[in-house]
């Protein structure tokens, strides 16, 4: 199982903020991951956008990066507080 976190507007698109889900064998890196997630959640490309960054196990990664079972994978749309 991988642990997915959809932050900000992405949770509205996927319908969940936190999801535990096994990775299919075809998903080995962030590129195949994004395509699979975008299709699974019918996100119409929202999860493919370069403005959406990925953090794996609490570290923002330069893509492509490998993904593995048991990773915590966060999908982060543009950030900003204050």
């Amino acid at each position, binding site marked *: 199982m991988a642990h997915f976190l959809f*932050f900000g*507007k992405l949770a509205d698109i996927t319908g969940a903020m936190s999801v535990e889900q096994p990775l299919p064998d075809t998903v080995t890196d962030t590129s195949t991951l994004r395509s699979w997630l975008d299709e699974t959640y019918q996100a119409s490309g929202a999860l493919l956008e370069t403005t959406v960054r990925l953090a794996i196990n*609490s570290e*923002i990664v330069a893509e492509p990066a490998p993904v593995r079972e048991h990773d915590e994978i*966060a999908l*982060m749309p*543009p*950030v*900003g*507080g204050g």
Partner: protein
Amino acid sequence: MFDLLDQPFDPAEALKQFNTAIGGAGAVVSFTGHVRPSAHGSAVTGLFLQAYSPLTEQGIEQAIETATARWPLSAVRVIHRIGEMTPGEAIVFVATASAHRRAAFEAADFLMDYLKTEAVFWKKETGETGSTWIEPRSEDYQDRARWAE
């Protein structure tokens, strides 16, 4: 130095506490961001701030270190709210103390630009016509770009 709070706080009380620890600095600058009562002419009823720990905290602590390395500061304080807020409540408080007026101003300005564009938060505004996720405006990114070295 930095706190993430899920409860309201009083920025004046934060300034009072900060002033007890400024180590003889002559200049103190504070910035407070409050939830606005309206946006684009329509009433705002609430604001929701989401963070991702520990990334959010690590990023802000790194930004404070950057500010401390770049300007001669004797003290820095950052408080940021998360969770549900109502109009008028303080979202963010930044205070800087320095022997030099310009250093205190610039460091507070720099930290706010970081918080607005790079700090790991997501912000949802709720109004009469529903909820919208708010992203930084192009002006925010331009403000942030002023500090590139």
